[in-house]
């Protein structure tokens, strides 16, 4: 770890120090002294050295998703009507059902996609934001890698919602049996959307700025 830290601090200059900034949209490298240049010459997007208000926006979104996570998991997410009797089940009930049935593979898939991924995403982003706040210098490349992984898995949590939509559409046997969504569904969608947005507005370069003592203002 020690030698790693040394190489990290010995690393040459950053783009910002060299007077360069990267367009957030098309990754074009633009010279800072072209200012007052407000838009990327290649794609026309507004251009900033770092994404504006990235940390505060990420915090707001990730805390929103943390709040939504509770109703999403506590309330029932699916309603099965069978011969006129309604039965509600939460996400956890659905997973337990698969394990009881002996379908361990599918039970694990849903456990990972619906429970572990959202929790991991929220805790991961919060941990990264906290480590920026305290300017923690270690594990920078690991945290970047974790963030990239969080971005990659973000969309997979929609799995359970798609399954419920398909069951609603397919299982329609009138009085015999029907399936529908239950109150947790919109909260669960909210968790997926807000965590994806929290990752979207976050700028990983802030992690490196804070970790290498270069977090002076970028305005």
């Amino acid at each position: 770890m020690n030698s790693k830290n040394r190489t990290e601090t010995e690393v040459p200059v950053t783009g910002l120090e060299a007077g360069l900034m990267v367009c957030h949209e098309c990754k074009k490298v633009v010279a800072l002294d072209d200012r007052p240049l407000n838009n990327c010459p290649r794609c026309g997007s507004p251009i900033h050295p770092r994404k504006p208000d990235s940390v505060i926006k990420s915090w707001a979104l990730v805390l929103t998703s943390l709040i939504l996570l509770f109703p999403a998991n506590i309330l029932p997410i699916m309603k099965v009507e069978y011969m006129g009797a309604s039965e509600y089940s939460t996400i956890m009930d659905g997973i337990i059902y698969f394990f009881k049935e002996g379908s361990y593979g599918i039970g694990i898939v849903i456990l990972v996609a619906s429970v572990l991924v959202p929790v991991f995403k929220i805790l991961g982003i919060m941990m990264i934001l906290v480590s920026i706040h305290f300017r923690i210098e270690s594990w920078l490349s690991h945290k970047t890698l974790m963030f990239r992984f969080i971005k990659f898995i973000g969309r997979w949590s929609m799995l359970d919602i798609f399954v419920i939509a398909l069951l609603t559409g397919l299982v329609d046997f009138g009085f015999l049996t029907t399936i529908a969504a239950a109150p947790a569904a919109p909260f669960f969608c909210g968790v997926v959307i807000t965590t994806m947005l929290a990752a979207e507005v976050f700028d990983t370069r802030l992690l490196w700025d804070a970790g290498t003592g270069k977090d002076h203002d970028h305005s």
Partner: protein
Amino acid sequence: MTVCPDCDLLLEAQMPHPGEKLVCPRCGCTLLAPVENSVEKTMVLSLTGLILFPPAIFLPLLTLDILGLESSGSIFTSAKAMVASGFVFTGIAVFFTSMVIPFIKLLLLFLVSMQISLGKANGATTLMFKAYKKMDEWGMLEVYMIGILVTIIKLLHMAKIEYDVGFFCFIGLMGATILSSSFLDENLYWESIFSQASASKTACQKAADKGEKAVHPA
């Protein structure tokens, strides 16, 4: 010289060969990943996706048979049923992530690729490609595919399942969409759009200048 978009490291850049990648040594971010014949491949695959889209979405996916009673549905009717059962927000989220955005993405990618290959990219192409990039991760066909498999396993012991045309078209649609974005060489696209758009702009400028001269001969 180039700069890593993820950690801001200043790098000595060399254009990698097709199939090779330029990776940031500090954070592991992929900076450049050129693809051979990217525009042609992406255009063909996005067109394939567009052709498969209507049957994949609107034709029945599966037919269930419980004690002789039959029920079938498509991807479209599933999202519609969700909205109809009162879950408007959730239903709309499903509509967008499984239909609207995947379709717009394929359409934009096809149009952009076609304009680049014809050498006619312009300001509108820039906007279209930017919109494509913005929507990229919000199209969730592969997640939906796993959703279909989970649904099948869930229903396996309570109903007889028949696979309909929509099911096979959907597999094709998902495959074409994944491949079209994996063959997409973003840097090449941006560079081509930029050079073609600025060339057409200067051509317009020249034509406008000429026109002005013709009106006011000095």
